[in-house]
């Protein structure tokens, strides 16, 4: 990857920002212009993301495509060495950028059928995506946090205005919990900045800096809880199922698919990479939290009636695997954690896309109300079953690759926990299979004979996501190579 690719990293968040500005200038009655702008912008993001992922050379240096633009020469109290807009990717950011690109394109497509304030919706959605891309490629702590918050804030309006099912409550709860969590992150960032005493927010410099072990032990949990809340970490997950249930389709897709990964990504960037000794100290706690979340989410999902709530709890369970993998502190388990971030992202985006495609027509998501839906909407059901099989860890699909690494990593350090983690996969199979049998199979309930097959936009989006699920499942080497090389290089104390 050449350093000119830094311009493309800049483009990942300038494209959606530019598109948002362009949309602001477009009159909202010009629907076709809005669709054209969003189509182009989302396609550009997709292409750039794929290119950046492919061109990241895992045999090369850790950070590639590094480019910096000075914003302030000397920020005084905030650093004598100034603040830079500095972009660059390592092998952890690369799959996350790819994930964002893969999810935003179908997310845009399925949102075209919105008729309520379409333009405003896309402005906020693209603002959110700009924040997500920016956080992933940013190598300066100041902008990292700025964009992290940019990604979170539009969520409130997106849910409160375009949502469903207790949307004001869901939006408020999500916002309050995430803002409270941000205070923890903010505090920890200042502690890191002050303690380093280098007068800079430059992340690679901070990665190399030495920190007092006691300080690390105090501030790692702040990062872990602060970012973990966004990652749906038990017991700070309460916003997640309600938030997902309330959010409109594309927002659920981006939120569960990408935004929650931002939380886990924050733990790796700020926690593991800056405060490795703190991470090492608290890793057993992450394992405990991870396995608890995995079981807790899966068992709760058994009893959910609302499809979106079931998927929400399923996300809590699957994100539990991420924390579990991170807590293993060995390169296999941690690789699994990052793989799981990617795998869960595409799979859950597909789930929400499909649920949305049905809910828009039926205005109902309660599993017992449906029966034999595979007759009325076969394409929908096939995609849904594929996503479900990925979720329950069927080999050949994305989820298995990630879970296998996590299981193996956990077994190296904690065999009993490993056994419980594998058992969770069986519980996942139970709630998904029960749902399939109840809703898709059996006699068709004629109450739903007015439902149509999902739209072509939805089918195209589902195809992109399903293709990604199969690609990772059948050919995981490109992901594994990038992630594991970076993890081995970057995190001191990671056991091989």
């Amino acid at each position, binding site marked *: 990857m050449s350093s000119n690719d830094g311009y493309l990293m800049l483009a990942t968040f300038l494209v959606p920002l530019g598109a948002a500005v362009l949309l602001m200038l477009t009159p909202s009655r010009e629907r076709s212009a809005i669709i054209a702008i969003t189509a182009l912008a989302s396609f550009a993001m997709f292409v750039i993301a794929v290119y950046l992922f492919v061109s990241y050379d895992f045999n090369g240096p850790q950070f590639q495509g590094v480019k910096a633009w000075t914003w302030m020469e000397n920020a005084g109290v905030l650093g004598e060495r100034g603040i830079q807009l500095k972009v660059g990717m390592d092998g952890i950011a690369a799959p996350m950028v790819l994930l964002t690109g893969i999810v935003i394109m179908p997310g845009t497509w399925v949102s075209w059928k919105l008729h309520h304030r379409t333009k405003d919706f896309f402005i906020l959605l693209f603002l959110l995506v700009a924040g997500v891309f920016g956080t992933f490629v940013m190598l300066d702590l100041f902008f990292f946090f700025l964009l992290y918050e940019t990604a979170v804030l539009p969520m409130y309006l997106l849910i409160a205005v375009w949502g469903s099912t207790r949307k004001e409550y869901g939006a408020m709860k999500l916002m309050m*919990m995430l803002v409270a969590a941000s205070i923890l992150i903010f505090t920890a960032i200042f502690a890191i900045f002050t303690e380093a005493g280098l007068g800079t927010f430059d992340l690679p410099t901070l990665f190399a800096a030495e920190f007092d072990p006691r300080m690390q032990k105090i501030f790692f949990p702040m990062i872990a809880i602060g970012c973990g809340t966004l990652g749906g970490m038990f017991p700070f997950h309460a916003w997640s199922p309600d938030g997902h249930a309330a959010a409109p389709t594309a927002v659920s897709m981006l939120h569960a698919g990408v935004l929650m990964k931002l939380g886990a990504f924050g733990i790796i960037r700020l926690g593991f990479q800056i405060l490795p000794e703190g991470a090492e100290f608290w890793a057993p706690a992450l394992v405990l939290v991870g396995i608890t979340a995995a079981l807790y989410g899966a068992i709760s999902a058994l*009893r959910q009636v609302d499809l979106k709530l079931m998927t929400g709890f399923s996300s809590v369970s699957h994100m539990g695997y991420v924390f579990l993998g991170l807590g293993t502190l060995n390169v296999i388990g941690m690789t699994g954690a990052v793989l799981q971030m990617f795998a869960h992202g595409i799979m859950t985006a597909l789930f929400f896309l499909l649920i949305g495609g049905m809910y828009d027509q039926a205005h109902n998501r309660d599993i017992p109300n449906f029966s034999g839906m595979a007759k009325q909407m076969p394409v929908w059901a096939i995609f849904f079953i594929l996503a479900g099989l990925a979720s329950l860890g069927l080999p050949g699909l994305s989820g298995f690759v990630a879970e296998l690494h996590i299981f*193996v990593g956990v*077994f190296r350090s904690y*065999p009993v926990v*490993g056994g419980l983690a594998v058992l969770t996969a*069986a519980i996942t199979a139970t709630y998904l299979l029960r749902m399939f049998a109840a809703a898709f*199979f059996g*006699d068709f309930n004629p109450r739903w004979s007015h439902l149509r097959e999902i739209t072509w936009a939805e089918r195209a989006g589902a195809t992109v996501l399903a293709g990604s699920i199969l690609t990772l499942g059948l050919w995981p*080497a490109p992901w594994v190579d990038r992630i594991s090389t970076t993890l081995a290089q970057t995190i001191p104390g990671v056991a091989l």
Partner: protein
Amino acid sequence: MGMEQVVLLPAIPAAIFVVLALFSPLLPRRGDWLAVVGMAVVVVLALAVAFHFQDFFGHGEFDPSGENARAFEWLNLSNGLFQIDLSTYVDAITVVMLLVVSIVALMVMIYSVGYMRGEARYGWYFGALSFFTASMLLLVTAGNLMVLYFAWEAVGLASFLLIGFYWERRSAAEAAKKAFITTRIGDVGLLIGIILLWREAGTFDIQQIIEFAEGGGFDQRYLTVAMLFLFMGAVGKSAQFPLHVWLPDAMEGPTPVSALIHAATMVVAGVYLVARMLPVFDVVLVARDVVLYTGLITAFMAATMGLVASDIKRVLAYSTVSQLGFMFVALGLGSPTAAMFHLFTHAFFKALLFLGSGSVIHATHQQEIEQLGGLWRKQPLTTWTFVIGSLALAGVIPLAGFWSKDEILHAANHNLPVFVTLAVTAGLTAIYTTRLVLLTFFGEPRNHHAYEHAHESPPIMTLPLLVLAALAAVAGFVIYEGVGQALGFAGGIGQLIFAHEPEVFHFDRDLATFALAVSLGGIGIGLVYWWGTAERATRARGWAPELHALLVNRYYFDDLYQSLINYVVLGAGSVIAVFDKRVVNETGVDGGAQTVGWFGLRLKFLQTGRIPNYALAMAGGIVTLSLVAFYTS
């Protein structure tokens, strides 16, 4: 065909699956011919592999790590720290499995052309069958436990899809779900076992793990635990006690599917796995004993349930479970040859019996044996081939089942309790088989509508019956060297089966006579009770109604599991869901928000809007802070 190309065997049906899944509506006859022709090619290639393998073997050039093992790196994390190769491995066990899978699959596909004609989703049916066959062929050629697990789950998925083929029917949907979840519980164990083996041996390669175990690399207790977990997978997939409950329900699938997946091939994957890993089981004999007694309990229990089942396919399903138990007993006794031999013969006669029952169902649209009877007049070919299969199952000389069952009894010769249980079970087998044949094909028709409707099946269905009947009759002779040599196999096919213990097979006249007496005795009892109007059998029910109820209710296992799911699993779900709602959400999150609101409500009265109040508060603050500063500095 050399060993290098063995990867083609799964690749051909896999490619056909992709074509059929995407394009079958566009193809003439929705592409059934593609699946059949592809399968025929696979049979030819499998035979070529067998001949080639014989050449090797005959000339003593057999080298497990040489030409017959091929690997392609799929995943390699940190220079081999965690590496998965897509590797193939061919040995005698593989060759036997390749022959069984490909031949039965071809017969079933040909048969299905007739049986499934006019079905909706006809093309999808052949696609799913091809997917299954590809996965099964991959499973038996895998040289690596991870690839095996991959294929293991894939055959499970195929089984799920095909059991649920008639998914509009609620019972089929439930059966598919039950099969998937039950086998999945076993698979949890399998995956744990594989990871535990990897954890110490550092590889997924089966041969390397075996070498590592034989070299004493594992701690005994550790290895016992790992092998027991691994065995859980076999228990689930091969429907052994206590995970046997899914197989009888799996009969909701189309009958040819039952013949291929739930009788001849997929359900023997567990036997194959244990046979493949038997050198490791030999290191920890406790684990091998678990295999033995699991098989023994299953064989007996399933045979008793087969005595009272009233659905023609369910009788056969119990019989399959019971025969799989026999194979596990053989493995537990340390005789992979007897197990593989029985697997080989059982595949043919059980597939024959299922396809025969399919022919009956096709003709009468009736599967309850109480509603059948007298069909021999209407369906002579089906009847007589079915009788051949039944006699093979009952173990009558000279049919295939006799020879292989004799081998298992021979292996149990030194263990009296096991031997007696097996002999009793063999007797029960003969009884329920006779009952099934008599009630279905002989006596007077009990449902005249079904009987009038009945007709012999078309040639495309009876041809596979004839081929399988021939195999069921003669497959046992492969143990004689001359037979194999006449077919062109240097050492006889028996040499494949007996590759590991070439000297084992001895025809023991006394034992064989005893086994034959047991079979004929069972058949005699069956004839006495069920001949004609089966009055005696009806009366016999009155002797011990509780026992009859126990068997009819399948020892209440299904009810037990259902209440476990309802009360324990879903109960835990309810408890946690309520905890999440009340404690985490309402107390934790909403409670926190309400506390803030409560304080806001109270504290707002401090906001009086009157300057003197604020000035006072400010003055108080300054004084307090000054005091603090004064005393702390």
